């Protein structure tokens, strides 16, 4: 490697050095905050301020206990889990039949419906947060998890449908025609022929939406509100930050706590998760 580089013109040598250096500097910049907040979650404010990068003197879990108790993080995790799972189920219930229909549709109507979903990314849903809030109030669901469970699938439909439709297009029509000939209804064809083949696509959609639902912040903040019995983990976490006198150790312990479920899933399903995150942009 070194010899090959030495033979290159100066500009290229700089090029290869810079992109490599950049890469590892960025990797360090990704890791240092992690290291910092993990060690900080075992320290007191004084220890954090005096020696930010030192390992903690003791691996004392009291910050975690304080964080969980102070922001009622246990309850918040339960709320997040409930909201996320319900929204994921609803997303699949809506997106699977829709993708199935769109993959088989041959007429103009199908194309129009499909482009409505494909253009969904243009909708600045954050800008329309206030009308969404009015909708929640009009449905009598303001300050409930229920409304967020209804809303999140809508935000995820465009991408979910685009991914699942392209998956279902790969299934040969003959398979379906054979099933129809045996007298199977549309829904039976969907369940018995399409679903088993689409499992990887469904996994991708589930993982992608798991991340975006679990991590959702502004919608739950405005629509569920601060009620500790209903609020999600993402809304609960920032309440550990106080204008005067934040206990940084507790704040970092709380942050670590909220990240655990995501990292658990990432560690177990690393390949699938990476593929899901990529397919969000790469499918086209």
């Amino acid at each position, binding site marked *: 490697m070194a010899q090959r580089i030495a033979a290159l013109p100066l*500009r290229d040598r*700089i090029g290869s050095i810079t992109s490599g250096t950049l890469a590892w500097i960025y990797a360090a910049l990704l890791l240092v905050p992690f290291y910092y907040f993990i060690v900080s979650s075992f320290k007191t404010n004084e220890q954090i301020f005096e020696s930010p990068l030192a390992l903690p003197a003791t691996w004392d879990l009291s910050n975690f206990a304080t964080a969980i108790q102070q922001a009622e993080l246990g309850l918040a995790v339960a709320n997040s889990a409930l909201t996320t799972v319900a929204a994921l189920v609803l997303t699949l219930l809506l997106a699977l039949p829709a993708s199935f229909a769109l993959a*088989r549709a041959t007429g103009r109507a199908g194309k129009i419906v499909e482009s409505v979903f494909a253009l969904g990314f243009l909708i600045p849903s954050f800008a329309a947060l206030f009308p969404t809030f009015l909708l929640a109030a009009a449905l009598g669901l303001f300050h409930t998890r229920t409304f967020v469970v209804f809303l999140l699938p809508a935000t995820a439909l465009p991408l979910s449908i685009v991914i699942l439709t392209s998956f279902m297009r790969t299934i040969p029509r003959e398979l379906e025609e054979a099933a129809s000939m045996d007298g199977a209804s549309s829904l039976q064809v969907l369940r018995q022929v399409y679903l088993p083949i689409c499992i990887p696509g469904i996994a991708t959609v589930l993982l992608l939406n798991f991340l975006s639902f679990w991590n959702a912040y502004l919608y739950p903040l405005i629509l569920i509100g601060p009620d500790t019995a209903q609020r999600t983990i993402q809304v609960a976490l920032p309440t550990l930050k106080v204008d005067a006198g934040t206990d940084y150790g507790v704040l970092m312990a709380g942050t670590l706590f909220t990240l655990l479920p995501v990292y658990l899933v990432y560690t177990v399903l690393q390949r699938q998760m990476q593929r899901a995150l990529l397919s969000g942009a790469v499918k086209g």
Partner: protein
Amino acid sequence: MTALVEAGPDAAVRPALPGGPAGPRRGSLRDRFPGLALPALVWYAVFMIGPVVAMFVIAFLSWPGMLETPEPTGLGNFARVFADETFWAAVANSAIQIVVGLPVMIVLAFLLAFYVVQKPRGHRVLRYLLFIPALISAPATAMVFYAMLNPDGLVNGVLRPLGSEGTAWLADPGTALGAIIAVELWSGIGYSAVLIASRLDGVDVEIVQAARIDGAGDWRLAWRMYWPIARDFIGVVAMLQFLSMLFNSAQSVLLLTQGGPGTSTTTLAYLIYQKAFVEADLGYSQAVGVILFVIGLLGMGTIHRLLRATH
């Protein structure tokens, strides 16, 4: 929102999707009309399209508080918006954020992707690390940066031995916007790099080897070969990050600075939030929403024009 934004590339790459592989053919009504798509369509119309339509209506109403009765005001809200210094401060902040932040993010992400694709030692570790920011929620990212950037935080702790006196990065008007942009770069570069790398992975190895034998070095390979090949795809990633910066910045601003000090970190997206939920000036807020929508379209058009495929 992530999901919405991520739908972008598909739509951008494939605006009109082909019907069936067999083309138009005779079928039952059920085949021609995708009835099973109706529930999803209705759901989407009620929860996504409805609020956006309402946004366009409210932008033309005078509605100075939740308990007031809204009245039509024509272009009144827009007149107020354009006469407001805070709005122009927000335009400037959003402009800086995008004009500075976006090119830096895309160029660095491209160089990173290029490096990873060459499979240097440790590239697997690198790929694993690059995904990290994509997994972390906005509140968690914001809390970590809040801890690092406070006057007694890590950044000052590292700089102090070098003779710098403590800066309150998030509370100093000179550095607050920069800090917000840094947070977005931190979380955006990795994911963009991973996306771009997935496209660069598809570049034919033999062409690259042939170019190397001809004496092309890394710098030239990156900019003369990989960049043109991946150009349109990089455009898609740029659009994705553009929309995310434009709209999602509201979250990091809300969590870290609440638009302050003064108006130094008030971005357009945050202004919409602030006017609606803090000051209850609803017509104003939604008028800015409409403006942001138009800016989003214009920006997408510009990026598409700048980075469209040349071949």
